[in-house]
């Protein structure tokens, strides 16, 4: 009797404790938060600052464009309700009338005209997104005309990543120019945003984290059920995978190839793989009269097509795709992904043939090979440095001694890009931002003249065949798709015949996605927050 | 004097080293009576300090007491368990080290160190202990003890610090004080003061003192009796007047060759050619025989036992031989 009495208060206490605990455990209608991590960071919120897929996708949650691309990369209206081409050189855009910026001000034609000027101003990384010769004219508050000097069927191909900014906001905050007026003052637009998109940025710490919250005044319907999205940078591969597997984040990019099996086996997350639009290829300096950092003095071996062919044939891309890429890559004969060019199927990659390669080198006068330096990024593309290493050892077998200079992307690009183009042999990945072959013929294979047009801007080795420039010009203004494809084929044939580039493969996308999350993976490797939903 | 405080019988101390067992003290016996000062002299390495350390139970490993007994007021203390021996230390046996500069913990006020000692061994309150500490400091001749008690050791001069050390040794009214070279590190002028102080305190409190030193001058000045040690053994022990004026053992005689007075600068002690043997190489027979001017064959084989010669005891075959000869 006594013992029962004494036990009672204890029981009550335990019960109370339990109740208290369970009450504490039930969150007060928690916000639905999506946490995600990428290997790089969002450096700037200014949508004209950096042409890099992931950053562009993030900007796309906050800013919007006149014309967007849907889940299948087809054009779709966004800030422009509709558009037409009353004549080949005039494009008319009808703007939505119910749109406001995040600061509450209405969206009008003035903002479009302002943005068209800003995106093409010095310091913008998106100058080629809007045709350089285009003039924008306001018809009324919600109608804008784009006037071109000559017909251009692909004039709006890159509009989906040309985001519209508020004129009044930019003027008020000294953010009219994409790069700050004085080199010693910080950029306002890099740290703050004022878009029209479904999300607002509530916190932005470059290199640490960025917090997106739902924009209550958004004009459209949003598929996403998220209240909040928190972005973090996790540069270290192992840490990033660990964060996904432990459920700390719901999405990571990229999942390293070797860890994909483990992620899939985890039960909590899966790898979403799909072909990417980016093509990885090798380029050779065919411009300089003497190859830099090479044992060959006084001449440039790459000016000899036989040497280029020998390099091409020495590299066994099939093995690279199978071994280095663990099957997560599609060997490519072209500098463009198959989905972006209908007649890709007609091209075949010449089979690797080390014997023939050696013979070609001998014919070209290098029976013992030669030495040169190869530039390679080590944190930009999937297994970029291992690919380069594999190339180095394959070339070693035909007697070419390659000194591999693998560097982080910041240093790498500073070296190989304009203005110095300081490279003899390099690896690059390229996605045509217009998603069209013309971009390849123009920027990658066009002769580098250093003019303002941007032709050959990414032709780091200055492979130059004037025939391609002619073809590119015809392709640009050709409106008949059939004829256009034929012209393009001629261009690609020429590059292959010249052994101008060594295309390797399209890498596979490798997003690690929590099973609680549904989202859309487009081949352009952009994560669009407005398509992300998460089980609460 | 019959009132024996300390009695050491056949004490041996050994050190285990990687070269085997070294015997640092070998069969040492002596007594100290109440109020008596026994001087222990000898060269460095003769075993004086080790004897002191053995008595207070502070021989660090790898050393150990290998044989013999130590009794304090009739109670055996060499085999006490550590905790009980700790209670003997400080309470019943006090100790004074050679270097007053390093004997005091530099981070504590001297008063705190005295109070700590008093309170470890008595039930006095903090306040009472502090009062006693001030009295002790006054007794050892520190001027303005009420103020100085809150000073740090580095604020005291060497002589003053040795006075503090003596006060610390006296803190719990021990029956025996082991003073290990208490004046060696001090200026000559201060040495005399410290010796005088030690003598006075010992007289006032009736404390027995074991005064370890290599300085015959100090012995002559302070000790009642003296033991001369050589190679871990006692060569001669007896009243100070006898040993100093009429040393029997050839080694003791050599030591007495030049006794510096306290007012003069101390001269060299060992006037005997050669040096004391290392512990690893103690010769057979009498340890002193290689240096002894009066060596004869028996010394090389047989170890001399202490035999009474007058009021002293001397470990030398010479006196055996003399008797034989006579």
């Amino acid at each position: 009797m006594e013992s029962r009495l004494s036990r009672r208060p204890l029981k009550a206490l335990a019960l109370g404790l339990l109740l208290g605990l369970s009450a504490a455990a039930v969150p007060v209608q928690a916000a639905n938060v999506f946490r995600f991590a990428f290997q790089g960071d969002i450096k700037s919120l200014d949508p004209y600052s950096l042409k890099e897929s992931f950053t562009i996708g993030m900007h796309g949650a906050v800013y919007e464009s006149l014309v967007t691309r849907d889940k299948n990369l087809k054009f779709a209206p966004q800030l422009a309700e509709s558009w037409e081409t009353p004549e080949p050189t005039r494009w008319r855009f009808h703007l939505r009338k119910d749109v406001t910026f995040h600061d509450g001000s209405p969206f009008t034609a003035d903002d479009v005209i302002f943005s068209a000027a800003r995106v093409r101003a010095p310091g913008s990384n998106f100058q080629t997104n809007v045709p350089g010769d285009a003039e924008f004219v306001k018809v009324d508050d919600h109608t804008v005309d784009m006037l071109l000097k000559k017909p251009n069927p692909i004039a709006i191909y890159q509009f989906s990543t040309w985001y519209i900014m508020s004129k009044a906001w930019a003027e008020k905050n000294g953010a009219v120019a994409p790069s700050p007026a004085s080199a010693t003052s910080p950029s306002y637009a890099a740290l703050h945003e004022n878009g029209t998109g479904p999300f607002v940025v509530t916190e932005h710490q470059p290199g640490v984290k960025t917090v997106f919250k739902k924009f209550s005044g958004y004009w459209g319907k949003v598929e996403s059920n998220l209240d909040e999205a928190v972005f973090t940078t996790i540069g270290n591969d192992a840490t990033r995978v660990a964060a996904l597997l432990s459920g700390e984040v719901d999405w990571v990019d990229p999942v390293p190839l070797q860890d994909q099996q483990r992620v899939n086996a985890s039960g909590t997350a899966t790898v979403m793989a799909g072909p990417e639009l980016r093509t990885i290829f090798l380029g050779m300096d065919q411009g300089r009269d003497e190859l830099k950092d090479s044992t060959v003095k006084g001449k440039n071996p790459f000016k000899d097509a036989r040497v280029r062919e020998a390099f091409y044939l020495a590299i066994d891309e099939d093995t690279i795709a199978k071994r280095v890429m663990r099957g997560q890559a599609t060997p490519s004969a072209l500098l463009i992904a198959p989905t972006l060019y209908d007649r890709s199927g007609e091209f075949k990659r010449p089979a690797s043939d080390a014997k023939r390669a050696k013979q070609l080198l001998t014919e070209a006068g290098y029976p013992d090979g030669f030495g040169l330096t190869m530039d390679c990024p080590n944190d930009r593309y999937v297994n970029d440095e291992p690919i380069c290493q594999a190339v180095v050892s394959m070339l070693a077998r035909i007697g070419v001694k390659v000194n591999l200079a693998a560097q982080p992307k910041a240093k790498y690009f500073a070296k190989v890009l304009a203005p110095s183009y300081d490279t003899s042999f390099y690896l690059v990945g390229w996605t045509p931002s217009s998603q069209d072959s013309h971009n390849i013929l123009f920027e990658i294979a066009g002769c580098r003249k250093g003019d303002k047009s941007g032709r050959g801007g990414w032709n780091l080795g200055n492979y130059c065949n004037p025939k391609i420039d002619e073809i590119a010009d015809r392709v640009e203004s050709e409106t008949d798709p059939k004829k256009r494809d034929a012209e393009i084929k001629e261009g690609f044939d020429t590059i292959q015949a010249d052994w101008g580039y060594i295309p390797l493969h399209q890498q596979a996308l490798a997003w690690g996605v929590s099973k609680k999350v549904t989202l859309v993976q487009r081949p352009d490797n952009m994560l669009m927050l407005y398509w992300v939903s998460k089980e609460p | 004097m019959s009132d024996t405080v300390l009695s050491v019988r056949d004490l041996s101390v050994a050190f285990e080293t990687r070269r085997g067992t070294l015997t640092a003290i070998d069969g040492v016996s002596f007594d100290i009576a109440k109020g008596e000062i026994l001087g222990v002299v000898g060269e460095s390495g003769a075993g004086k300090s080790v004897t002191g350390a053995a008595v207070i139970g502070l021989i660090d490993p790898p050393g150990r007491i290998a044989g013999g007994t130590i009794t304090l007021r009739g109670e055996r203390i060499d085999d006490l368990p550590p905790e009980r021996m700790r209670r003997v230390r400080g309470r019943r046996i006090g100790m004074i080290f050679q270097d007053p500069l390093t004997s005091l913990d530099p981070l504590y006020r001297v008063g705190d160190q005295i109070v700590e000692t008093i309170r470890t061994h008595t039930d006095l309150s903090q306040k009472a202990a502090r009062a006693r500490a001030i009295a002790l400091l006054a007794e050892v001749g520190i001027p303005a003890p009420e103020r100085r008690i809150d000073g740090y050791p580095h604020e005291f001069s060497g002589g003053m610090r040795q006075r503090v050390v003596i006060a610390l040794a006296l803190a719990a009214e021990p029956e025996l004080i082991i003073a290990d070279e208490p004046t060696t590190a001090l200026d000559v002028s201060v040495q005399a003061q410290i010796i005088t102080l030690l003598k006075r305190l010992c007289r006032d409190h009736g404390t027995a003192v074991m005064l370890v030193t290599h300085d015959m001058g100090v012995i002559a000045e302070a000790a009642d009796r003296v033991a001369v040690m050589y190679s871990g053994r006692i060569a001669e022990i007896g009243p100070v007047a006898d040993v100093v004026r009429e040393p029997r053992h050839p080694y003791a005689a050599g030591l007495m060759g030049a006794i510096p007075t306290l007012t003069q600068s101390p001269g060299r002690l060992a006037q005997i050619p050669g040096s004391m043997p290392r512990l690893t190489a103690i010769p057979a027979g009498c340890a002193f025989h290689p240096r002894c001017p009066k060596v004869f064959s028996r010394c090389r084989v047989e170890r001399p036992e202490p035999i009474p010669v007058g009021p002293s005891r001397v470990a030398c075959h010479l006196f055996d031989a003399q008797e034989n000869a006579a």
Partner: protein
Amino acid sequence: MSASAGEAALPPPAAAPRSRLARFRDSDLWASFKRSKLAIGALAVTALLFTLAIAAPLISPQNPYDPAQLDLINSNLPPLWQAEGQAPFLWGTDDQGRDVLSAVFYGLRLSLIVGILGVLVSGALGIALGLVAGYVGGWLDTLIMRVADVQLTFPAILIALIVDGVAKAAFGGALDTNATIGLIVVSIGLSFWVQYARTVRSSVMVEKGKDYVQAARLIGLSSPVIMLRHVLPNVTGPVFVIATINLALAIITEATLSFLGTGLPETMPSLGTLIRTGNRFLFSGEWWIVAFPGLALAGLVLAINLLGDWLRDALNPKLQ
């Protein structure tokens, strides 16, 4: 005299001239060495690893630095004792078909070269500066010792990163392997000299006050030379201890630099680079790519540290 009398009374060195070896065998160093099983083990491991490093080109089944010998077909093979293992790749291969065993041998070689060069540079720098500071004294001493204080702020990693960043900004572009090695060696040298300098300086300070230096001055002898002759033997022990421990630190530093991406390139991997690249495969089950270089590095550093530890204890008279 204290209670440790037994140790202090060791026999004097025998008067008769004896061979150096015999004297060494009789010395405390040797005795303490024989007693310490750990020291014997550490020395054995160190000796083994040094031998492997020196003999790497002779005993490796493959030259991992020769790209022509790598074949992608052999990539990612597990160790020989596993089901898919293939001869001659005892410890398996990495993602480039590089034999892990050979890579570890060559990596040991490179790590040791970088470490030893780094220690030599820092030692030379430190001893020179310590001598100057101690001997000349005055404002030069103050300056050198203040710089040493500042230096302590910046661990080798930080210095190396800054040296690397500045070098790349200044020269632009990638450096070749030899330049990278040089850069790392310089960084290590710049960050580890302080201890040598302090040790040598204090020894010089002690010697400076001694009679023979004053005497030498009086009779017009060049005292720096005489001092050198007295100072150097005094500091050999401590300097050797510092060098041993620094060698371990230098090897770790190089590995860490490689992890942060400023170390040696993947085509010419040191142990650190091997761990960095192998680290990618830690989660994927291809454990052998990181495990063997990791074990080799840990073993090497541990053995050297143990040796250094034991040396320090053995040479420290206070601890005997």
